[in-house]
């Protein structure tokens, strides 16, 4: 086996173990940090596939922004230290594992058969090609993305905003 395959399998092994940790631990923040490690290992996988732009965007946006948002949400609402008993759902574990496993196999079958060993990028830096394609062939989805972001922004602000009529006097 080449060193490339060894490294890939090693990363995959770590990835599966951290992902399992995310769903089996009963401490919320431990789950969030295990998710951070899972995403970091996914970004290493993307690096091994020579798409460094996607790998670093994964770190920058997912790890750097989205999970920080999760952590803010947890800390502002209750920030429990230690195990959280209501996260342990023993009743439906087997059914949940069966459904998750079948979805996993279905997805992998569809993806592997769909791409079937096709090589997308043959030369050049991935970032430049991505930029070219994004703004020439896929202009319409690109502009739609800006609208989706705007909708998310306005939605989040509307939900979390304080209603002016309910502001009491001793708000510092």
């Amino acid at each position, binding site marked *: 086996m080449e060193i490339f395959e060894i490294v890939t399998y090693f990363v995959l092994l770590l990835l599966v173990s951290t992902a399992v940790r995310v769903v089996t631990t009963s*401490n919320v*923040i*431990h789950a969030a*940090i295990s998710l*951070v490690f899972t995403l970091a290992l996914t970004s290493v996988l993307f690096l091994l596939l020579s798409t*460094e*732009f996607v790998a*670093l*965007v994964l*770190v*920058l946006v997912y*790890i*750097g*922004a989205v999970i*920080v948002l999760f*952590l*803010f949400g947890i*800390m*502002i609402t209750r*920030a429990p*230290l*230690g195990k959280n008993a209501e996260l342990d759902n023993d009743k439906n574990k087997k059914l949940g594992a069966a459904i998750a496993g079948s979805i996993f196999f279905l997805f992998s079958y569809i993806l592997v058969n769909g791409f079937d060993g096709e090589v997308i990028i043959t030369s050049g*830096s991935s*970032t430049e090609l991505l930029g070219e394609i994004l703004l020439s062939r896929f202009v319409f989805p690109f502009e739609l993305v800006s609208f989706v972001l705007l909708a998310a922004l306005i939605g989040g602000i509307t939900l979390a905003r304080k209603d002016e009529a309910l502001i009491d006097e001793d708000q510092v």
Partner: protein
Amino acid sequence: MSIELIISLVKANIVLAVLLTNTILLIWFERKVVAGMQSRVGPDRAGPFGILQTLADAIKLLLKEQILPSKADRAMYLLAPLIALVPSFLIFMIIPLGPDITVEWQNALYTIPLVGADLNVGVLYFLALSSIAVYSVVLAGWSSGSKYPLLGGVRASAQMISYEAAMGLALVPVILYSGSLSLVDIVNSQSGNLSSSIPILNTIVSFIPKWNIFPQFVAFGIFFIAAVAEVNRAPFDLVEAEQELVGGFHTEYSGFRFAMFFLAEYINMFNMCAITATFFLGGWLGPTFEGILPPIFSVIMPIIWLGVKTFLLLFVFVWIRATLPRLRYDQLMELGWKRMIPLSLVWLILSAIVLGLREFGLPWS
């Protein structure tokens, strides 16, 4: 072992050694300069001129007792200083220290780029690692199991993420001008002097080097201020100020773990200054005096120029700390969101329009 692996390991060692030595000198330098600006002497007992003061402090902190609070979450408490310190080593890897050097070894010519890792996406790598630094603050604040670190941690991380957005958007005009995300290309695109299509202006500006600060002074200002806020330095250091939230997110840390936060802040400060020098002040570019000095200097002069520019920016950092008062938290957040981000977006649009006019001519011709 292949030659590339050996080069990688040697570069890794050099980077770590350079960073740690620079940090020790930087802490001493800051204490001396702040003391001078406050009309006092600063450290002068440990070693000549107090240079070994930092080492003495580090050894003292190594020997102090580590108090792990009973309510703390042990795993995250131990992880947070690691997340603070290790990414700061990694940021220094992408800074180019000089042009490629060609050595002849075993009858083959090797071109070694004087940069730890010449990534195609260096700018994104830098932004991604700055984003990871937020985690150390958040985890430290939460895992200490007490109110003040939690509040301090949430506020510090909100401050850091606000200025990260401004930092990322302020870098886009620089990328527009150089056309690449790799830092080596950004430095190489700043070589030469400015030129203008108007002949009279051309004779005046052709003495000015083509560093990115001259066309992009607004982006430089935004990036520099965002860098100061990102490293949690004064005047943006409300969240670790002793008078406010006790010690902020590192209240419950003692001993070497506290030293790790401290070291991480100074290493980050050094990294930010070096990155600002690379993006805006032309990195290692500068006259090499080739005819006058012996040829070994043509390898060392670029490193010296980078060091001089970084040192100047570090002096400005320390100067700002000694001079300006601390910003209140709402003033800080207002500055970040209401002034810097709209300004950076407007400046981005203006730079793109100017570049478009220069490259494509007028749209109706």
